Protein backbone atom coordinates (compact mmCIF):
# COMPACT_ATOMS: atom_id res chain seq x y z
CA UNK A 1 0.00 0.00 0.00
CA UNK A 2 1.40 3.37 -1.02
CA UNK A 3 -0.24 6.57 0.17
CA UNK A 4 2.06 8.89 -1.77
CA UNK A 5 1.01 10.77 -4.85
CA UNK A 6 3.26 10.19 -7.84
CA UNK A 7 5.53 12.97 -9.10
CA UNK A 8 3.18 13.50 -12.05
CA UNK A 9 0.16 13.75 -9.76
CA UNK A 10 1.90 16.27 -7.52
CA UNK A 11 2.96 18.34 -10.50
CA UNK A 12 -0.55 18.41 -12.00
CA UNK A 13 -2.06 19.27 -8.62
CA UNK A 14 0.39 22.14 -8.11
CA UNK A 15 -0.24 23.52 -11.60
CA UNK A 16 -4.02 23.50 -11.27
CA UNK A 17 -3.80 25.01 -7.79
CA UNK A 18 -1.49 27.77 -8.99
CA UNK A 19 -3.48 28.56 -12.13
CA UNK A 20 -6.87 28.53 -10.43
CA UNK A 21 -5.51 30.77 -7.68
CA UNK A 22 -4.00 33.17 -10.19
CA UNK A 23 -6.95 33.33 -12.56
CA UNK A 24 -9.89 32.82 -10.20
CA UNK A 25 -8.51 33.51 -6.72
CA UNK A 26 -10.25 36.86 -6.48
CA UNK A 27 -13.40 35.70 -8.20
CA UNK A 28 -16.48 37.07 -6.45
CA UNK A 29 -19.60 35.15 -7.41
CA UNK A 30 -22.57 37.30 -8.35
CA UNK A 31 -24.69 34.87 -10.35
CA UNK A 32 -24.22 36.72 -13.64
CA UNK A 33 -24.70 34.16 -16.45
CA UNK A 34 -22.02 35.78 -18.62
CA UNK A 35 -19.53 35.67 -15.77
CA UNK A 36 -20.35 31.99 -15.26
CA UNK A 37 -19.74 31.28 -18.96
CA UNK A 38 -16.41 33.10 -18.73
CA UNK A 39 -15.63 31.07 -15.61
CA UNK A 40 -16.20 27.84 -17.55
CA UNK A 41 -13.82 29.02 -20.26
CA UNK A 42 -11.20 29.91 -17.66
CA UNK A 43 -11.67 26.49 -16.04
CA UNK A 44 -11.24 24.93 -19.48
CA UNK A 45 -7.99 26.87 -19.91
CA UNK A 46 -6.77 25.25 -16.69
CA UNK A 47 -7.89 21.86 -18.04
CA UNK A 48 -10.57 21.16 -15.46
CA UNK A 49 -13.66 20.91 -17.69
CA UNK A 50 -12.27 17.84 -19.44
CA UNK A 51 -10.13 16.10 -16.81
CA UNK A 52 -11.56 12.61 -17.44
CA UNK A 53 -12.49 13.03 -21.10
CA UNK A 54 -10.44 11.39 -23.87
CA UNK A 55 -7.37 13.31 -24.99
CA UNK A 56 -8.39 13.03 -28.65
CA UNK A 57 -11.30 15.36 -27.87
CA UNK A 58 -9.28 17.83 -25.83
CA UNK A 59 -9.66 16.16 -22.46
CA UNK A 60 -7.05 15.13 -19.93
CA UNK A 61 -7.59 11.38 -20.33
CA UNK A 62 -7.54 10.89 -16.56
CA UNK A 63 -9.17 8.32 -14.30
CA UNK A 64 -11.41 8.99 -11.32
CA UNK A 65 -8.65 9.47 -8.72
CA UNK A 66 -6.68 11.92 -10.85
CA UNK A 67 -9.91 13.71 -11.71
CA UNK A 68 -10.73 14.07 -8.02
CA UNK A 69 -7.21 15.37 -7.34
CA UNK A 70 -7.63 17.93 -10.13
CA UNK A 71 -10.98 19.04 -8.73
CA UNK A 72 -9.48 19.25 -5.25
CA UNK A 73 -6.74 21.56 -6.50
CA UNK A 74 -9.33 23.61 -8.37
CA UNK A 75 -11.65 23.82 -5.35
CA UNK A 76 -8.72 24.87 -3.21
CA UNK A 77 -7.41 27.57 -5.51
CA UNK A 78 -10.79 28.92 -6.62
CA UNK A 79 -12.91 30.31 -3.78
CA UNK A 80 -15.92 30.48 -6.11
CA UNK A 81 -17.20 27.06 -5.02
CA UNK A 82 -20.38 27.49 -7.07
CA UNK A 83 -18.33 27.68 -10.24
CA UNK A 84 -16.16 24.72 -9.16
CA UNK A 85 -19.26 22.71 -8.37
CA UNK A 86 -20.90 23.62 -11.69
CA UNK A 87 -17.79 22.59 -13.61
CA UNK A 88 -17.54 19.30 -11.71
CA UNK A 89 -21.23 18.48 -12.23
CA UNK A 90 -20.88 19.31 -15.93
CA UNK A 91 -17.94 16.93 -16.17
CA UNK A 92 -19.07 14.03 -13.98
CA UNK A 93 -22.85 13.89 -14.24
CA UNK A 94 -23.00 14.89 -17.91
CA UNK A 95 -19.75 14.44 -19.85
CA UNK A 96 -19.04 11.03 -18.26
CA UNK A 97 -22.26 9.42 -19.55
CA UNK A 98 -21.70 11.08 -22.95
CA UNK A 99 -18.15 9.69 -22.95
CA UNK A 100 -19.33 6.18 -22.09
CA UNK A 101 -22.73 5.87 -23.77
CA UNK A 102 -23.25 8.39 -26.59
CA UNK A 103 -23.64 7.13 -30.15
CA UNK A 104 -20.68 7.50 -32.49
CA UNK A 105 -22.63 10.11 -34.47
CA UNK A 106 -22.63 12.67 -31.66
CA UNK A 107 -20.01 11.55 -29.15
CA UNK A 108 -16.95 13.28 -30.62
CA UNK A 109 -18.47 16.70 -31.30
CA UNK A 110 -20.21 16.77 -27.90
CA UNK A 111 -17.07 15.76 -25.99
CA UNK A 112 -15.03 18.36 -27.85
CA UNK A 113 -17.49 21.09 -26.86
CA UNK A 114 -17.74 19.86 -23.27
CA UNK A 115 -13.97 19.65 -22.79
CA UNK A 116 -13.43 23.13 -24.22
CA UNK A 117 -16.01 24.67 -21.86
CA UNK A 118 -17.85 26.17 -24.84
CA UNK A 119 -20.67 23.66 -24.42
CA UNK A 120 -21.95 23.68 -20.85
CA UNK A 121 -24.02 20.69 -19.72
CA UNK A 122 -26.79 20.36 -17.14
CA UNK A 123 -27.86 17.12 -15.50
CA UNK A 124 -31.67 17.01 -15.34
CA UNK A 125 -32.98 14.14 -13.24
CA UNK A 126 -34.82 15.70 -10.26
CA UNK A 127 -38.54 16.35 -10.57
CA UNK A 128 -41.06 17.87 -8.19
CA UNK A 129 -42.26 14.36 -7.28
CA UNK A 130 -39.02 12.43 -7.85
CA UNK A 131 -36.04 13.16 -5.61
CA UNK A 132 -34.32 10.21 -3.95
CA UNK A 133 -36.82 7.79 -5.49
CA UNK A 134 -36.47 7.82 -9.26
CA UNK A 135 -38.97 5.00 -9.74
CA UNK A 136 -41.79 7.29 -10.79
CA UNK A 137 -40.49 9.85 -13.24
CA UNK A 138 -43.10 12.17 -14.72
CA UNK A 139 -41.03 13.11 -17.78
CA UNK A 140 -41.85 10.67 -20.56
CA UNK A 141 -40.19 9.76 -23.84
CA UNK A 142 -42.46 8.20 -26.44
CA UNK A 143 -40.79 6.44 -29.38
CA UNK A 144 -41.65 8.12 -32.69
CA UNK A 145 -40.11 7.89 -36.12
CA UNK A 146 -36.35 8.41 -35.86
CA UNK A 147 -36.38 9.27 -32.19
CA UNK A 148 -38.42 10.16 -29.16
CA UNK A 149 -40.95 12.75 -28.11
CA UNK A 150 -40.13 14.14 -24.66
CA UNK A 151 -42.73 15.72 -22.41
CA UNK A 152 -42.64 16.90 -18.82
CA UNK A 153 -40.70 19.07 -16.43
CA UNK A 154 -37.46 18.70 -14.49
CA UNK A 155 -37.57 20.85 -11.37
CA UNK A 156 -33.89 21.33 -10.70
CA UNK A 157 -30.93 21.13 -13.03
CA UNK A 158 -27.59 22.62 -12.06
CA UNK A 159 -26.09 24.74 -14.90
CA UNK A 160 -29.42 24.75 -16.78
CA UNK A 161 -29.63 28.55 -17.25
CA UNK A 162 -26.29 28.52 -19.10
CA UNK A 163 -26.52 25.04 -20.62
CA UNK A 164 -26.16 24.11 -24.26
CA UNK A 165 -26.72 20.42 -23.51
CA UNK A 166 -29.10 18.69 -21.11
CA UNK A 167 -28.39 15.14 -19.98
CA UNK A 168 -31.79 13.92 -18.91
CA UNK A 169 -33.73 10.82 -18.00
CA UNK A 170 -37.27 9.99 -19.06
CA UNK A 171 -39.69 7.14 -18.63
CA UNK A 172 -39.94 4.94 -21.70
CA UNK A 173 -41.65 1.95 -20.05
CA UNK A 174 -43.75 2.76 -16.95
CA UNK A 175 -44.49 -0.95 -16.41
CA UNK A 176 -40.79 -1.56 -15.66
CA UNK A 177 -40.66 0.69 -12.59
CA UNK A 178 -37.28 2.24 -11.84
CA UNK A 179 -35.74 0.36 -14.77
CA UNK A 180 -38.15 1.81 -17.31
CA UNK A 181 -35.94 4.86 -17.84
CA UNK A 182 -33.89 5.94 -20.80
CA UNK A 183 -31.11 8.53 -20.89
CA UNK A 184 -30.73 11.32 -23.43
CA UNK A 185 -28.22 14.04 -24.25
CA UNK A 186 -30.56 16.77 -25.47
CA UNK A 187 -29.14 19.82 -27.26
CA UNK A 188 -30.54 22.88 -25.50
CA UNK A 189 -31.54 24.53 -28.76
CA UNK A 190 -33.92 21.78 -29.91
CA UNK A 191 -37.49 23.03 -30.38
CA UNK A 192 -39.56 22.12 -27.33
CA UNK A 193 -36.80 22.60 -24.73
CA UNK A 194 -37.29 25.60 -22.47
CA UNK A 195 -35.32 26.82 -19.48
CA UNK A 196 -36.73 28.56 -16.43
CA UNK A 197 -34.97 31.54 -14.80
CA UNK A 198 -32.14 30.87 -12.31
CA UNK A 199 -33.59 29.64 -9.00
CA UNK A 200 -32.86 31.79 -5.97
CA UNK A 201 -30.93 29.72 -3.46
CA UNK A 202 -28.78 29.80 -0.34
CA UNK A 203 -25.30 29.18 -1.72
CA UNK A 204 -23.25 27.97 -4.69
CA UNK A 205 -24.18 31.30 -6.27
CA UNK A 206 -22.31 30.80 -9.53
CA UNK A 207 -23.74 27.37 -10.11
CA UNK A 208 -26.92 28.59 -11.76
CA UNK A 209 -29.78 26.14 -11.41
CA UNK A 210 -33.18 26.11 -13.03
CA UNK A 211 -36.16 24.17 -14.26
CA UNK A 212 -36.14 22.49 -17.68
CA UNK A 213 -39.37 21.82 -19.55
CA UNK A 214 -39.88 19.52 -22.52
CA UNK A 215 -42.95 20.17 -24.65
CA UNK A 216 -43.40 17.70 -27.51
CA UNK A 217 -39.64 17.89 -27.88
CA UNK A 218 -38.52 15.65 -30.73
CA UNK A 219 -35.14 14.18 -29.84
CA UNK A 220 -33.44 12.36 -32.73
CA UNK A 221 -32.41 8.78 -31.91
CA UNK A 222 -28.71 9.62 -32.16
CA UNK A 223 -29.03 11.54 -28.87
CA UNK A 224 -30.19 8.46 -26.93
CA UNK A 225 -27.48 7.42 -24.45
CA UNK A 226 -26.95 3.66 -24.32
CA UNK A 227 -29.93 1.47 -25.10
CA UNK A 228 -33.56 2.20 -24.42
CA UNK A 229 -34.24 1.10 -20.83
CA UNK A 230 -30.62 1.52 -19.76
CA UNK A 231 -31.25 4.93 -18.17
CA UNK A 232 -31.16 3.78 -14.59
CA UNK A 233 -27.84 1.97 -15.02
CA UNK A 234 -26.37 5.00 -16.81
CA UNK A 235 -27.57 7.28 -14.03
CA UNK A 236 -26.01 5.01 -11.39
CA UNK A 237 -22.77 5.04 -13.38
CA UNK A 238 -22.69 8.84 -13.60
CA UNK A 239 -23.58 9.13 -9.91
CA UNK A 240 -20.73 6.76 -9.01
CA UNK A 241 -18.33 9.18 -10.71
CA UNK A 242 -20.02 12.24 -9.24
CA UNK A 243 -20.28 10.95 -5.68
CA UNK A 244 -16.69 9.77 -5.75
CA UNK A 245 -14.86 12.54 -7.59
CA UNK A 246 -16.95 15.73 -7.29
CA UNK A 247 -16.36 15.95 -3.58
CA UNK A 248 -12.71 16.61 -4.30
CA UNK A 249 -13.99 20.20 -4.67
CA UNK A 250 -14.99 20.11 -1.00
CA UNK A 251 -11.65 18.63 0.08
CA UNK A 252 -10.09 21.64 -1.62
CA UNK A 253 -12.48 24.02 0.10
CA UNK A 254 -11.67 22.47 3.49
CA UNK A 255 -7.92 22.71 2.84
CA UNK A 256 -8.22 26.41 2.05
CA UNK A 257 -10.55 27.03 4.97
CA UNK A 258 -8.32 25.25 7.49
CA UNK A 259 -5.30 27.24 6.31
CA UNK A 260 -7.30 30.45 6.85
CA UNK A 261 -8.27 29.29 10.34
CA UNK A 262 -4.68 28.45 11.26
CA UNK A 263 -3.50 31.79 9.97
CA UNK A 264 -6.22 33.64 11.87
CA UNK A 265 -5.63 31.76 15.13
CA UNK A 266 -1.91 32.45 14.88
CA UNK A 267 -2.39 36.16 14.32
CA UNK A 268 -5.35 37.23 16.43
CA UNK A 269 -4.57 37.98 20.06
CA UNK A 270 -6.96 38.09 23.01
CA UNK A 271 -6.16 38.16 26.73
CA UNK A 272 -2.54 38.77 25.84
CA UNK A 273 -1.93 35.71 23.70
CA UNK A 274 -2.64 34.21 20.31
CA UNK A 275 -6.06 32.59 20.31
CA UNK A 276 -4.49 29.42 18.85
CA UNK A 277 -2.88 28.91 22.26
CA UNK A 278 -6.29 28.32 23.80
CA UNK A 279 -7.11 24.62 23.60
CA UNK A 280 -10.74 25.48 22.93
CA UNK A 281 -9.47 26.90 19.65
CA UNK A 282 -6.58 24.56 18.80
CA UNK A 283 -8.51 21.37 19.53
CA UNK A 284 -11.35 22.56 17.35
CA UNK A 285 -8.89 22.88 14.50
CA UNK A 286 -7.42 19.45 15.25
CA UNK A 287 -10.90 18.00 14.81
CA UNK A 288 -11.34 19.94 11.56
CA UNK A 289 -8.11 18.37 10.32
CA UNK A 290 -9.28 14.95 11.44
CA UNK A 291 -12.53 15.27 9.48
CA UNK A 292 -10.70 16.50 6.40
CA UNK A 293 -8.16 13.67 6.41
CA UNK A 294 -10.78 10.97 7.10
CA UNK A 295 -12.83 12.21 4.18
CA UNK A 296 -9.76 12.41 1.98
CA UNK A 297 -8.74 8.79 2.59
CA UNK A 298 -12.27 7.52 1.94
CA UNK A 299 -12.60 9.62 -1.20
CA UNK A 300 -9.23 8.63 -2.68
CA UNK A 301 -9.98 4.98 -2.00
CA UNK A 302 -13.47 5.16 -3.54
CA UNK A 303 -11.97 6.73 -6.67
CA UNK A 304 -9.18 4.17 -6.75
CA UNK A 305 -11.73 1.33 -6.60
CA UNK A 306 -13.63 2.95 -9.46
CA UNK A 307 -10.42 3.10 -11.50
CA UNK A 308 -9.76 -0.56 -10.71
CA UNK A 309 -13.14 -1.41 -12.19
CA UNK A 310 -14.40 -2.58 -8.83
CA UNK A 311 -17.82 -1.09 -8.31
CA UNK A 312 -18.08 -0.58 -4.60
CA UNK A 313 -21.27 1.30 -3.83
CA UNK A 314 -20.57 1.23 -0.12
CA UNK A 315 -17.10 2.79 -0.45
CA UNK A 316 -18.48 5.56 -2.64
CA UNK A 317 -21.42 6.22 -0.31
CA UNK A 318 -19.13 6.37 2.72
CA UNK A 319 -16.84 8.85 0.97
CA UNK A 320 -19.69 11.07 -0.20
CA UNK A 321 -21.39 11.15 3.19
CA UNK A 322 -18.15 11.69 5.11
CA UNK A 323 -16.78 14.52 2.98
CA UNK A 324 -20.09 16.40 2.80
CA UNK A 325 -20.74 16.07 6.54
CA UNK A 326 -17.15 17.16 7.20
CA UNK A 327 -17.58 20.24 5.01
CA UNK A 328 -20.64 21.35 6.97
CA UNK A 329 -19.10 20.61 10.39
CA UNK A 330 -15.86 22.37 9.44
CA UNK A 331 -17.85 25.28 8.04
CA UNK A 332 -19.61 25.73 11.37
CA UNK A 333 -16.31 25.46 13.24
CA UNK A 334 -14.68 28.05 10.98
CA UNK A 335 -17.59 30.41 11.65
CA UNK A 336 -17.06 30.02 15.40
CA UNK A 337 -13.28 30.50 15.12
CA UNK A 338 -13.63 33.70 13.15
CA UNK A 339 -16.34 35.00 15.46
CA UNK A 340 -18.02 38.21 14.34
CA UNK A 341 -15.61 38.54 11.42
CA UNK A 342 -16.78 35.21 9.98
CA UNK A 343 -20.37 36.45 10.01
CA UNK A 344 -19.43 39.30 7.68
CA UNK A 345 -19.94 38.48 4.02
CA UNK A 346 -16.56 39.91 2.97
CA UNK A 347 -14.69 37.37 5.08
CA UNK A 348 -15.79 34.52 2.79
CA UNK A 349 -16.24 32.29 5.85
CA UNK A 350 -20.04 32.39 5.95
CA UNK A 351 -20.07 31.76 2.20
CA UNK A 352 -18.06 28.56 2.70
CA UNK A 353 -20.73 27.31 5.09
CA UNK A 354 -23.57 28.24 2.73
CA UNK A 355 -21.73 26.50 -0.13
CA UNK A 356 -21.21 23.38 1.99
CA UNK A 357 -24.75 22.86 3.26
CA UNK A 358 -26.17 21.58 -0.04
CA UNK A 359 -23.40 18.96 -0.27
CA UNK A 360 -25.32 16.79 2.20
CA UNK A 361 -28.35 16.88 -0.12
CA UNK A 362 -27.31 16.77 -3.78
CA UNK A 363 -26.00 13.61 -5.50
CA UNK A 364 -28.02 11.57 -3.01
CA UNK A 365 -28.65 12.77 0.53
CA UNK A 366 -26.56 11.62 3.48
CA UNK A 367 -29.58 9.56 4.51
CA UNK A 368 -29.64 7.75 1.15
CA UNK A 369 -25.87 7.14 1.35
CA UNK A 370 -26.41 5.52 4.75
CA UNK A 371 -29.24 3.43 3.29
CA UNK A 372 -26.85 2.21 0.60
CA UNK A 373 -24.18 1.35 3.18
CA UNK A 374 -26.79 -0.48 5.30
CA UNK A 375 -28.14 -2.40 2.30
CA UNK A 376 -24.60 -3.38 1.35
CA UNK A 377 -24.23 -4.73 4.88
CA UNK A 378 -27.26 -6.91 4.16
CA UNK A 379 -29.61 -5.03 6.47
Amino acid at each position, binding site marked *: MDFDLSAAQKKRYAEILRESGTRLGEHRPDGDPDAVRRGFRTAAGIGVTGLCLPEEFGGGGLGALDTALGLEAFGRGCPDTGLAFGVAAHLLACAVPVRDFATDDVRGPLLKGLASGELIAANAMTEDEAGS*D*IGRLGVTARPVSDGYLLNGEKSWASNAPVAGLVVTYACT*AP*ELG*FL*GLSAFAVPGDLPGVSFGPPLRKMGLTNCLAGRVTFTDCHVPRRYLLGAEGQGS*GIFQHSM*AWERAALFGVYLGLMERQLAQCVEHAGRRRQFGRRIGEFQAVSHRMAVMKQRLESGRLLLYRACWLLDEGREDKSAIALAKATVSEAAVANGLDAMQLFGGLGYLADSGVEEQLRDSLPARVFSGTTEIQREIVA*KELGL
Partner: protein
Amino acid sequence: MAQDEITERISAFIRDRFLDGDPQGELEETTPLLELGVLNSLNTVLLLAHIREELGVAVPSLRINPSDLKNVRSITAMVRELQHSAV
Protein backbone atom coordinates in the same frame (compact mmCIF):
# COMPACT_ATOMS: atom_id res chain seq x y z
CA MET B 1 -24.27 -24.36 -8.40
CA ALA B 2 -27.33 -25.89 -10.05
CA GLN B 3 -29.90 -23.66 -11.64
CA ASP B 4 -32.66 -24.92 -9.34
CA GLU B 5 -30.65 -24.06 -6.28
CA ILE B 6 -29.91 -20.53 -7.49
CA THR B 7 -33.58 -20.02 -8.30
CA GLU B 8 -34.59 -21.29 -4.89
CA ARG B 9 -32.10 -19.12 -3.00
CA ILE B 10 -33.04 -15.96 -4.87
CA SER B 11 -36.75 -16.70 -4.47
CA ALA B 12 -36.32 -17.37 -0.76
CA PHE B 13 -34.54 -14.04 -0.28
CA ILE B 14 -37.19 -12.10 -2.19
CA ARG B 15 -40.00 -13.82 -0.26
CA ASP B 16 -38.35 -13.20 3.06
CA ARG B 17 -37.17 -9.63 2.57
CA PHE B 18 -39.61 -8.03 0.17
CA LEU B 19 -42.85 -10.03 0.45
CA ASP B 20 -43.29 -10.52 4.20
CA GLY B 21 -42.57 -14.21 3.74
CA ASP B 22 -45.09 -14.49 0.87
CA PRO B 23 -47.73 -16.28 3.02
CA GLN B 24 -49.98 -16.94 0.01
CA GLY B 25 -47.11 -18.47 -1.96
CA GLU B 26 -47.63 -16.05 -4.83
CA LEU B 27 -44.05 -15.60 -6.02
CA GLU B 28 -43.30 -17.53 -9.18
CA GLU B 29 -40.31 -17.58 -11.50
CA THR B 30 -42.15 -15.33 -13.92
CA THR B 31 -43.71 -12.89 -11.46
CA PRO B 32 -42.94 -9.42 -12.90
CA LEU B 33 -40.84 -7.93 -10.09
CA LEU B 34 -40.37 -4.50 -11.66
CA GLU B 35 -43.93 -4.06 -12.81
CA LEU B 36 -45.25 -4.91 -9.34
CA GLY B 37 -42.70 -2.66 -7.64
CA VAL B 38 -41.21 -5.57 -5.67
CA LEU B 39 -37.82 -4.36 -6.85
CA ASN B 40 -37.08 -0.64 -6.48
CA SER B 41 -33.68 1.02 -6.59
CA LEU B 42 -32.91 0.44 -2.90
CA ASN B 43 -34.25 -3.13 -2.79
CA THR B 44 -32.12 -3.93 -5.79
CA VAL B 45 -28.98 -2.83 -3.95
CA LEU B 46 -29.95 -5.23 -1.17
CA LEU B 47 -30.69 -8.11 -3.56
CA LEU B 48 -27.42 -7.64 -5.44
CA ALA B 49 -25.46 -7.44 -2.18
CA HIS B 50 -27.08 -10.75 -1.19
CA ILE B 51 -26.19 -12.34 -4.54
CA ARG B 52 -22.62 -11.14 -4.12
CA GLU B 53 -22.25 -12.41 -0.56
CA GLU B 54 -24.20 -15.65 -0.81
CA LEU B 55 -23.64 -16.71 -4.42
CA GLY B 56 -20.26 -15.04 -4.96
CA VAL B 57 -21.39 -13.18 -8.07
CA ALA B 58 -20.77 -9.45 -8.51
CA VAL B 59 -23.36 -7.95 -10.82
CA PRO B 60 -21.98 -4.93 -12.72
CA SER B 61 -24.22 -1.86 -12.70
CA LEU B 62 -24.98 -2.07 -16.41
CA ARG B 63 -26.62 -5.44 -15.83
CA ILE B 64 -29.14 -3.53 -13.73
CA ASN B 65 -31.56 -3.40 -16.65
CA PRO B 66 -35.14 -4.51 -17.23
CA SER B 67 -34.37 -7.66 -19.17
CA ASP B 68 -31.96 -9.04 -16.54
CA LEU B 69 -34.04 -8.09 -13.49
CA LYS B 70 -37.51 -8.75 -14.91
CA ASN B 71 -38.24 -11.84 -12.80
CA VAL B 72 -36.62 -14.63 -10.82
CA ARG B 73 -35.98 -16.62 -13.99
CA SER B 74 -34.06 -13.80 -15.71
CA ILE B 75 -32.08 -13.02 -12.55
CA THR B 76 -31.13 -16.69 -12.25
CA ALA B 77 -30.02 -16.77 -15.89
CA MET B 78 -27.87 -13.67 -15.36
CA VAL B 79 -26.26 -15.12 -12.23
CA ARG B 80 -25.50 -18.37 -14.10
CA GLU B 81 -23.99 -16.45 -16.99
CA LEU B 82 -21.82 -14.31 -14.70
CA GLN B 83 -20.71 -17.43 -12.77
CA HIS B 84 -19.57 -19.05 -15.99
CA SER B 85 -17.84 -15.97 -17.33
CA ALA B 86 -15.92 -15.63 -14.05
CA VAL B 87 -14.50 -19.15 -14.32
